[in-house]
């Protein structure tokens, strides 16, 4: 398993979140999640402008044998979606923390980092899953 990017925050559901300079956040799924699903063949993206609650369903990623919901790590609204994934869903497998981003969100409230996991905490979760 590759090294976890140190500048991201993580969730129990294997999403990652990056704080952007304009105050928005970018969300994707972790390498662990993408590897567990296998080669992705389809991503169902939300509508731009859609409001989502923290923990609410935001997108669906689908591999040949499984489909999985992607949950919003925080409350907010969808500011942009990664349209490239419609034609190229395997970008999530190839580059989960870069080209494989899924949604950019405008936050409803100030980001409460204590609700999310640090890279160390998420690494610990992965280690426990391996055991």
């Amino acid at each position, binding site marked *: 398993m590759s090294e976890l990017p140190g500048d991201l925050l993580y969730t129990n559901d294997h999403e990652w979140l990056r704080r952007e300079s304009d105050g928005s956040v970018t969300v994707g799924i972790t390498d662990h999640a993408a590897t567990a699903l296998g080669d992705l063949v389809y991503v169902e993206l939300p509508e731009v402008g859609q409001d989502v609650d923290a923990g609410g369903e935001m997108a669906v990623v*689908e*591999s040949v*044998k*499984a*489909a999985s919901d992607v949950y919003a790590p925080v409350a907010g609204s969808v500011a942009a979606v990664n349209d490239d994934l419609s034609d190229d869903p395997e970008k999530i497998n190839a580059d989960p923390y870069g080209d494989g981003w899924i949604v950019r969100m405008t936050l409803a409230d100030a980001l409460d980092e204590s609700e999310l996991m640090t890279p160390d905490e998420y690494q610990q979760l992965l280690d426990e899953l391996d055991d």
Partner: protein
Amino acid sequence: MPFIPHTEKDTREMLDAIGVQSTEDLFDEIPAELRIDHLHEVPEALSEMQISRLMRDRAAMDGSPVCFIGAGAYEHHIPAAVWDIATRGEYYSAYTPYQAEASQGTLQTIYEYQTMITELTGLDVSNASLYDGASGLAEAALMSVRANRRVKTGLILLAPGVNPVYEHVAEAIAGSQGLTFEWLPVDTTTGNVAFDQLPEGRNPVAVVMQQPTFPGTLEDVDRLTDWAHAQGAFAIGIANPMTLALLKAPGHWGEQGVDIACGEGQPLGVPLSSGGPYFGYMTCKEKHVRQMPGRIVGRTTDLDGNPGFALTLQAREQHIRRSKATSNICTNQGLMVTAATIYMSLLGVEGIAQVGRKSHENTTRLVDGLCAIDGIERLYEGPYFHEVALRFDRPVAPILEALATKNILGGYDLTKDAGTDALLVCATETKTDADIDACIAAFAEAMG
């Protein structure tokens, strides 16, 4: 011998393992007053010999009337080869096989069916079939809500020509899932939608239209499809597949074609058989395929480079998607689809066109003859395919009874649907000139 795979010893061991005295105890949770110890209305079992005799006697009560009823199910000649092949041991199952890929022949048959039905309907993709035309509309309505995500009203508008039974079924299946079904206004002269009274700004998620309409007329489906799209709605087209070698395919209606087509597949090689089993077809534009319910068979290449067939896009389905599956429909009417595939293969597009032309000719002969009788005239003006609504100057039920005594089923009583004394008649290619003339004579006599 009942098919109970567990011996008493098996059962005892299982009960002991979970610490329960008897199988009965497993049902303790259900209050005693809700339990029925005996099904009083269900008669005792009969032997095979007794049941064969009973069924023969009951079947004989049907007689072999000459049938001029259509109204959604149509009698067509079915070449003997259709059911001779469909009932071969390799095919003779009502179900999609478990471990489907081990049954390559069955999968290829479904794949060929999908290819044929997409060609007939002019759309990109087909599923492996649904239960029947009516439940097909319910599934199409639910699919339009999933695929046309921008519209949140759940409002489905129906052209007046949609089979009223389909509306009842769709309402029963989808009404409790937040969908509402409303009829569009009818033009009483043509029987079709009243274009000058169409409601603007209702924000429907889909507009449903049927061709030919339930009372047999031809709707301006091009214009209605375009109107649906102008409203931001999906266009759902219901079409009798037997008409599609002659009439325009739903995929070509209007500027962009319908988004989803569905309908009753029975005319393609499935006997009337007192109302079922039939099968429903559903096709759509490729961009909506992930919202399509049901199974889809795809063609692929195996490790050795040989072509093979596999169930595909299964992540839509309930065994993977669970509660978020596109539908609870996880099966198809495999045997009926097999028959339809063989039927379509034997006839080809030209054969289906010939059936349509002959049915139209026969219906014209019947309608011209009936309209020459005092008190009978056409209910709606305009062209028709193989079914026509007629207005009577008196109640039609006694007339149908009089015809029944002569072994003629004279048509579908349309009085309730039309709000006036009316009958829907259909003469497919199965009727001879003599049949049709005898029918006209019987009407003339009954009308006195």
